């Protein structure tokens, strides 16, 4: 099984301008009412770049301008100021969409179609010939695990299944650049893990991913770089590892230490100028615990927990 860990280095040169997939210059958006009066200043002078082959996270609380940024990049909204470029073309240029995959916040799909029809429809929108569409549909249905529900109308799908078919439609054209808006929303922990693994696999395939999420752990797990927005302004931009690094705290992980050695370490720290903050046994995450239990249950069905 693939493990969820963020890569430490993006696989491409950041200085090469041809490696910039998305570029925003002084991008701003003001929402106005019917009479043209200013309602909300949703985005203010955003300057960011998304580079080829990286997973770029957009973070921020509700109303911070994340979705507006994505919509401006996709041409769903027009900027009030500045410009957004995708693959060097203006964001409103339809031609750029040939190389883009987009998974919206909620899977906005036709509920009266089934999975096969949905993928076939979106394949046609990419002008794909019938044999290619069939092949891609088959691959994607396998990939998102909807084999048994392929002929069911989407209105009968659970939220998790709808997310999966949403992701499949975003990948129908084997996009170079994938925009994922809250990709783990509605997924259970297993689904969330699978989604994160898939995002990493896609990155390994050379795809560039822009991810927008409230789930900070997800962003931390998969993103190479993040931009943090608040009230429409860019507050922080950089690599995840360097942003999270606490510079003046040292962390040592060791195994099999006896009490005497632990005491010696404490004394050593006390003798030096350092301050002992904490020494205890690490805990796993709830996500890891849950996944271990489910895996064990799959391997040994019928065994019940003893309780504590």
């Amino acid at each position, binding site marked *: 099984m693939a493990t969820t860990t963020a890569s430490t280095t993006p696989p491409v040169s950041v200085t090469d301008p041809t490696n910039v997939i998305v570029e925003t210059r002084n991008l701003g958006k003001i*929402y106005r009412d019917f009479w043209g009066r200013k309602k909300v200043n949703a985005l203010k002078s955003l300057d960011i770049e998304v580079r080829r082959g990286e997973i770029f996270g957009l973070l921020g609380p509700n109303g911070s301008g994340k979705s507006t940024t994505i*919509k401006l990049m*996709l*041409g*769903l*909204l*027009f900027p009030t100021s500045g410009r957004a470029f995708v693959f060097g073309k203006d964001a409103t240029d*339809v*031609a750029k*969409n*040939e190389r*883009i995959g*987009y998974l*919206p916040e*909620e899977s*906005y*799909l*036709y509920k*009266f*179609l089934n999975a096969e*029809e949905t993928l076939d*429809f*979106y394949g*046609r*929108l*990419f*002008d794909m010939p019938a044999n290619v569409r069939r092949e891609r549909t088959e691959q994607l249905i396998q990939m998102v695990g909807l084999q048994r529900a392929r002929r069911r109308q989407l209105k009968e799908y659970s939220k998790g299944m709808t997310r999966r078919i949403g992701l499949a*439609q975003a990948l129908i*054209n084997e996009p170079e650049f994938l925009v994922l808006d809250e990709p783990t929303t509605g997924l259970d922990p297993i689904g969330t893990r699978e989604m994160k693994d898939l995002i990493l696999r896609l990155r390994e395939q050379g795809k560039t991913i822009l991810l927008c999420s409230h789930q900070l752990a997800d962003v931390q797990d998969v993103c190479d770089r993040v931009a943090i927005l608040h009230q429409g302004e860019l507050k922080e931009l950089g690599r995840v590892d360097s942003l999270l690094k606490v510079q003046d705290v040292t962390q040592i992980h060791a195994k099999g230490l006896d009490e005497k050695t632990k005491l010696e370490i404490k004394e050593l720290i006390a003798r030096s100028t350092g301050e002992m903050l904490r020494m205890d046994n690490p805990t796993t995450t709830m996500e890891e615990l849950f996944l271990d239990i489910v895996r064990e249950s799959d391997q040994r069905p019928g065994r019940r927990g003893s309780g504590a």
Partner: protein
Amino acid sequence: MRLSPDQFWTYFEWLFVHSALFYGFLLVLVLAVLGFLIGFVVALLKHGPAEGFLQVSKLIGELFVVDIPGTSIRRVGAIARLAVKEAIRKKVLVVVAVFVVAIMFAGWYLDQQAQFPARLYISFVLTFTNYMVLVLGLFLSCFSLPSDIKSKIIYTIVTKPVRPTELFLGRVLGFTAVGTLVLLLLGSMSYLFVVRGVIHEHEAIEISSDGVSGKTSRQQFHSHEFVLDETGNGVTNETKGHKHVVSKVGDKIVVGPSIGDLEARVPIYGMMRFTGRDGQVANDGLNVGYMSEYHKYIEGDSLCSAIWTFKGVSRDSFSEGGLTYDMTISAFRTYKGDIVTPVGGEVRFRSVDGSAVTEPFPFKVKEFQVDQRSIPFTGLKGSLNEQPAELDFFKDIAKNGEFEVVIRCQDRNQYLGMAAGDLYFRAEPQAFWWNFIKGYISIWLQMVIVICFGVMFSTFLSGPVAIIATLSVIVLGFFGFFVDDIVKNADSDVGPVASLIRIPLQSGSGTQLDLGNIPLERTIRVVDKGILICVQTLSKAIPNLNQLHTADFVAYGVNLFGGLLSRHLTVCAGYFLMTGIISYFFLKTREMAA
């Protein structure tokens, strides 16, 4: 059924002689300039003059350079297929069920004892189908796009390489396909309904002792009388708009199937002119003061005449029986006299140069019915180069297929009334089923226009508002001629502002507006004129669905002219283009996520 002269123009006459092409280009030019100006004003407010001009120019350029060439048939097909699936899965075919129920119980509300049952049935099914299909087109086209925008499904569409042209084309084609399917079903059922309702058989009963005359059995609330000729063949009298061929087979008299009720007469119309009392060409006939201005009149026992000029008539168009022609002439009496005897007239056939002319064929006016007549092709008594001669119609009179028909009224102080469509020659009839299909093609064209407008409005309005807007187009399309009438008949004192002022003044529209202030009255006239011109211009941009409604042609058994249908097709294509271009600009400039 009344035909106006413009209805029997050929397609090319309409396009070139009557300047439809010119006016079409003019309309395109006006709309293009208007569209550019509106677009520029909007862009000017947003971006300033230079950038605004650039934006609008870029938008127009993209349509022709990028979006039209880049339109993919597969993408259009995908959107069209989706529209079809959506409509079918949302149970649009329930319309067919409603129609089935309506015609199942048609016997309850259609008068089975009507004088012309075929006309009634055909008129009913065509009109009912017409309105049903228009309502279907209205609902299909107006809600789809706004619903996609509201549910945000549009996000996953426009983030694919889908162009505005494809969004419009796909939807229009998809809804048209659904409408066509429904129309095919309704049309098939209608045809069966009409044919089954009209076709009937009689038996010969009450045969006279000599065996040459008799009466048929009573079927469908009627019976016929017949007289056989010496060969044992004959035709019944006309009842309920049809006759039967009767023939003697052995000792038995057999009554054949009905003729005349399900037919498609092929009329050949001519252009009409009048001569006045002095025998000189007059622009119009006489007005006898009737409310209807459809008919113009000629005075009896005078040099007044009505002259029709026919062109392109050939021998091949007629059967062996002779040159058949129909007249629907009305009479206006200035004195009662012998009320039983109809007003008399005469008809002559003559060559265009006047060298050959037949003797007059007298007739008595059969009011409110079609007077069917025929003349032989040869042996016509008349004069050739002012010498008595026996004339060959196509050799002496209709040289190059062109000839004239002259009608005069014989009775002094009585008048005959007629319009261009009241005299026509009957060529070999076409099959009824084909005329029926042509009637449905007219309905189809109306449906396509409604769908185009529905999709256009739905690109910038919400579903319910788009419905109201499209409904307004339909209503104005059917009743827009009122606007024309108002503008045409309105003199400067009955405009909207003047009328508003007249209400509190309790001043009738027949009098001149008198406010005691001449500058004010002039201003009101100018404002009214401006309003009426605007209203008229606006009404021209709206399709005249009333003209496209051709149910009467089928119901009255008149072949729907190919030229007329081609014109309607061209008009439909024009509206398709117009709505397509407007939709393109709205889709291109609309923020889908706003």
